[in-house]
């Protein structure tokens, strides 16, 4: 990151090589359209280039994922002209486990951990993360009571954490 702050284009290129699959993948998964995913990937990396200080501490991959998801949520909101509650994405940015999770996990392990969840827990987690909708909208779309959706998200995340913890220590 220091080299990036010094406007080193080769450092920036290395970051792109390392992370563009993740950024493009999140954008494609959320927007469902390759051209828009390309544009969003471009926007995310240009934001990093023009303002490298926007990343301060923590795990870079986790931060970049959040930036990508935020941008994709903006696109989804403008696309749908949503009347519903917007989904704010600012969260306290302190988590010592971020580093462990993002440094030692890969997409295959996460997919395996998610696949180990019961469908009724995995579905609201994936919809909530990639679908750009609130838990209330998930409840409406699936005709499942709101309280059940919340409980399943919590149970699912706890189980996912346990699966991932097992995965990184194996």
């Amino acid at each position, binding site marked *: 990151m220091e080299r990036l702050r010094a406007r080193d284009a080769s450092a*920036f290129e290395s970051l792109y090589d390392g992370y563009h699959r993740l950024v493009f*993948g999140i954008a494609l998964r959320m927007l469902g359209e390759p051209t828009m995913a390309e544009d969003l990937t471009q926007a995310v990396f240009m934001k990093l280039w*023009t303002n490298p200080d926007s990343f301060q501490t923590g795990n870079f991959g986790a931060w970049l994922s959040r930036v990508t998801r935020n941008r994709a949520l903006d696109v989804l909101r403008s696309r749908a002209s949503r009347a519903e509650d917007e989904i704010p994405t600012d969260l*306290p940015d302190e*988590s010592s486990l971020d580093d462990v*999770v993002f440094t030692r996990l890969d*997409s295959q392990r996460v997919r395996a951990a998610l696949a180990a969840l019961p469908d009724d827990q995995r579905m609201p987690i994936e919809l909530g993360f990639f679908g750009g909708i609130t838990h209330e909208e998930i409840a409406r779309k699936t005709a499942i009571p709101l*309280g059940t959706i*919340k409980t399943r998200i919590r149970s699912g*995340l706890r189980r996912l954490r346990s699966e991932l913890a097992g995965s990184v220590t194996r």
Partner: protein
Amino acid sequence: MNGSMDHDAMLDLVAVYALGALGASEHRIVTAHLLTCDTCRAEFDALRPAADAVALMAEEPVDSATSTRMKQRLMAQVNRDLERANVVPLESRRSRSFVTWAAAAAAGIAAVIALTTTASNVSLRSELATRNRDNATQQTQLARDARSQDAERTMIADLVASDGKHFPVTGGEVLERGTRLYISMKSLPALPKGKVYQAWTLAKGAKAVAPSVTFTPARGGVAVIALPESSANLVAVAVSVEPDGGSKVPTTKPTFVRPLS
């Protein structure tokens, strides 16, 4: 949080918050609650990495044509940005050596000559100017976005930090961290139509309060407000109900007055 049922419900909300799937009003409620509840904060810390990791499942190999195209677009933009940075005014580049200056000047003169020799280059310059203006607009917007995000990030870090000074008031608190001040309220009464809450600050030695920001609480009376004033020279913070648009002096009895000591 009066009973265990209520708290279980809040823990469920914390999970949805960690996933990033709460609506704005509940998001503010949970943000405020995490300031005061260690149990929920621990739950958030436990679930947040799992929620973050969900992003990794989206990582996919990108076909080489797409990958190459994206990279070429991006690096072309980066190179344009670097070129533009190389023609900034002389005053900002005084530290550069004479040799660099001479080379830059020669390159600049050559570029100017080349650009003015043919009619087609006039068109090219016009397009370049348009693009530079577009880029400048985009840069300004990006800088504005970045400042806004930085401010939000700072506020959240301050609200959850353990070294902040908490000054309780009925239904909430005033928080001071460093020289930054926040008002965090959980249950402000609903406002009459045409009214807003307004914050006031009292400087050391001052005889009257000075007007600060106005705000309207979210559903349930929740409000988390960053005051623009530095706390360095302040001795008290107050809030009152004022007409929409705010007042120059308080016109109603304050909701609270809180000395910063």
